[in-house]
């Protein structure tokens, strides 16, 4: 018995090692602007604030590699019907007057003061110490008040029983869900799936990193540019910000 289990552990280890190796093969892309994973057993730290800087000038209209990567990572399927989940979506914009065209990915903005967290009756919507806004689906009763409160339409409601459980994030009927900033990957020291996919596709539109660390690439970049925060009038302190978007 114990032999069997030890053997299985070794199997897991070797399979895991293969995957870890895959991560290491393309370091320039995958581990770009990223420190190490948080040690096992330690909680997320309040000294870190994860965020994204999205450069709309690098984002190509018609490209949806980020969306596909998210759907693959979380086993969301590619349906875009009115009741289908979309954690990240591509929005095409045309400026009124000038007719200037833009394209950008839109997802949970991981607010510092998230309205979804404030309104949630059970505390299922919460903000982790490192600024990632999540739904604790064990607590979600499916009232959808957070979806009413979110200024970015970032959340989806699981309208049907979930049959495909192969995704990285457990999800189930009757609860609300949204972008997790790939918290499972971030905790391992990897980049969110959309960031990785954008980079792999040859675009460098999404920069991910620690907004609290002045030495991080994202912090340095933000010093030299003026990013736009969506619905800045609401003063939510969004963790995601955009470049090339004239103030909204």
């Amino acid at each position: 018995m114990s032999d069997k289990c030890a053997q299985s552990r070794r199997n897991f280890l070797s399979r895991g090692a293969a995957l870890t190796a895959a991560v290491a093969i393309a370091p320039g892309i995958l581990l770009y602007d990223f420190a190490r994973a948080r040690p096992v057993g330690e909680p997320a730290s309040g000294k870190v604030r994860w965020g994204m800087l999205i450069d709309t000038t690098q984002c190509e209209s018609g490209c949806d590699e980020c969306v596909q990567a998210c759907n693959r990572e979380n086993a969301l399927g590619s349906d875009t019907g009115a009741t289908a989940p979309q954690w990240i979506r591509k929005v095409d914009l045309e400026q009124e007057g000038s007719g200037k065209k833009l394209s950008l990915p839109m997802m949970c903005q991981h607010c510092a003061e998230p309205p979804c967290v404030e309104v949630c009756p059970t505390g299922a919507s919460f903000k982790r110490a490192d600024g990632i806004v999540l739904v604790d689906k064990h607590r979600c009763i499916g009232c959808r008040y957070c979806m009413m409160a979110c200024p970015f339409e970032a959340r989806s409601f699981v309208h049907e029983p979930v049959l495909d459980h192969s995704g990285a994030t457990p999800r189930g009927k009757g609860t609300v869900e949204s972008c997790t900033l790939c918290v499972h990957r971030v905790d391992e020291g990897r980049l969110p799936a959309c960031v990785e996919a954008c980079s792999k596709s040859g675009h460098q539109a999404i920069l991910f990193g620690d907004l609290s660390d002045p030495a991080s690439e994202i912090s340095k970049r933000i010093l030299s540019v003026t990013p736009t925060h969506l619905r800045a009038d609401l003063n939510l302190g969004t963790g995601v910000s955009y470049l090339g978007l004239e103030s909204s």
Partner: protein
Amino acid sequence: MFVGMPMKVWRFWWYLMGTSCLVWTMSLQAAVPPLDLDIGLGGHCVDDPQYMRLNHMKLLLKQRDETVRQGIRGGKYSLAKCVDCHASKVNHSVLGTDRNFCQGCHVYASVKIDCFECHSSSPTVHTLRRQAAVESHKE
């Protein structure tokens, strides 16, 4: 309703109720065959098996909250680990038939499981790689 009923009848009624309950319970005991579970890979559990039988639900819930809400990874009592070791080699799942590890025991004990509406009942790429990452960290 029973005011005025002779005490003898009253006592007899309770006796009847008690005996029938006892007989009924015993008949249930007799009707259910001993549990024959497919424990998958099995082997050394993360803790004493008897302790786990009694406490796995509390341990899982506690670790679940710590992982989801605080981001503490790599805990000992993970649902994915249960699934990895105890998924049947026949259908690669802890559910499916009344012999499968989780379903079998929960049917036997008449307790509803609320885990697998969201969580995978089979080992997935993600759980495997997460565990590998944890193991490599520990080394």
